[in-house]
């Protein structure tokens, strides 16, 4: 499993539109991805669960990637987070 941490700098956090984009990005990687904030975690393919994390600006999230090419997937997602959150 690969994981990285990211501190949200985007004003709205992981909300509707960015969350929708994230789900698409995650599905494109073909890996299983969990987003954790504090003790809560959510499967990144569920839009409503992601929104339920209530991630706002300044929160640190941990992104855990598991799959056949998790190295590449984690790198792609890290880029995605930097660009969108």
């Amino acid at each position, binding site marked *: 499993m690969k994981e990285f941490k990211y501190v949200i*700098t985007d004003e709205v956090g992981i909300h509707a539109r960015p969350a*929708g984009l994230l789900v698409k990005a995650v599905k494109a990687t073909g890996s299983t991805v969990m987003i954790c904030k504090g003790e809560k975690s959510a499967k990144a393919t*569920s*839009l409503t669960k992601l*929104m339920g994390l*209530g991630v706002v600006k300044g929160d*640190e999230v941990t992104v855990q990637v598991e799959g056949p090419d998790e190295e590449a997937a984690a790198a792609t997602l890290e880029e995605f987070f930097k660009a969108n959150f």
Partner: protein
Amino acid sequence: MMGLVEALGKAIPNFAATDWYGFLDMIANTAFAYLPVIVAISAARVFGGNIFLGAVVGLAMIHSALLNAWSVGSAEIEYWRLLFFNVRKVGYQGHVIPVVIAVWLMCQIEKWLHKHVPEMLDLFIVPLCTVLATTFLTFTIIGPIFAQLETWVLAGAKVLVRNPFGAGIMGALYPWTVVMGLHHMYNVIEAGMLAEGALNTWMPIATAANIAQFGACLAVGLKARNNKTKVVAVPSSLSAALGITEPAIFGVNMRFLKPMIAGTIGGAVGALLGAIMKLGAKAYGVTGLPGYLIIDKPFPYTILLLVSAGIAFVITWVIWKEEEKPAAAAAAPAAAAPAAAETLEAKAAELPQYPDTSDVVANTVIGCSAGELGQVTKGNVIPYTQLPDPLFAQGTMGIGVGVEPEEGVVYAPCDGEITSVADSRHAIGIEGPEEMDILIHVGVDTVEMKGDGFKPFVEEGDKVTKGQKILEFDREKIKAAGHPDTVVFLLTNSDDYENVTFTGQE
């Protein structure tokens, strides 16, 4: 375990000299001796900071270069001169609150730095500055405040124990000083009494307070139907009976508050009784059941135990009800804005009342290989492509429909589990059969209303059945705020399924 080992050591003098005692004592002690580290790590996790930095802060607070907090009173305190602060070289062994405050501070500093330090230097600068700034502030500001409080508590306690009523008051205050982490210096009082050749009359007070926590906690454990509460409360109460009350106080009684009040009353009566019966101990270090090993009169001691625990148990049993659970659980996050929440509740209460179930969901508006989803509210159904917001209309959030509502109420479109309720109450997520991820979003841009006019009847983790009322909303308020009130209803992971259909499909 710690209490038992110590009690054995004090009751059987020879045992205290054995190697076995030394070994068992060390193991039993470990978690308590280094408690700040464990507290710091879990606090860092809760406050969203780096747990390793939290551990470092916790470790710094009990560094061996500092005088052990348990030894204050028996050794000279040394000072460091830092800027214009006199810093006491004293550790925080056994403290809880100062550690939590320090770690909270650390998390704020860490987050601020993460945002303001360029990424290239982040890895190097953030941990260093965070730890340095946090520990400096802790030792110069937080530390002295608590040291002063401890001194006052100690002085107050010494005065109070001189007469039975004072003892009663002390029995009531005792658990609260445990909450504040101010109870570490009581050993000094006990040692002082014994050194003067008198009996240790402090121990019965502490026992009354502790065994009352046991009574209150046990009542919660036996009365609770929620399994989680039960499995925490019962073992916690047993450990309280042995004199270790922290799990009962922090894990159970404080959380529900009413048991804590019951424990306070039980402790007060027990302590008063103990003082009237002139109970005393011949050593110190243990309370509760192991206290039998050092008490002078076992029979009155039994009365004290039964009275304190009994009162706390009965009061808790009567005044504590399980229904308080959601309120108490919600209290922590909601505490930030309790006033706002209350006014919202009050306003929500003015809404018209709708029945708890409806057959409007009999009309299937979204269908796919995983199942059928019913219409969530009465009104005209439009396809998602006609929704008045490009975010929804383009299908970024999945496909589905909108309903132009005739009533301000939302019903569950299928059986499932609530996965999220937005803080602003206007959106609810549901996981339906075969992991269908359903979003119900009332109105467009209604997040700006910050919850005003929305009243959810469910919370995260609740199971719902098709047709069950899950949310009420005030259409007038949405209109007044200038937003469309269309209820957006989407299958967000629609591309995971085959044969997806929806009302108004072209």
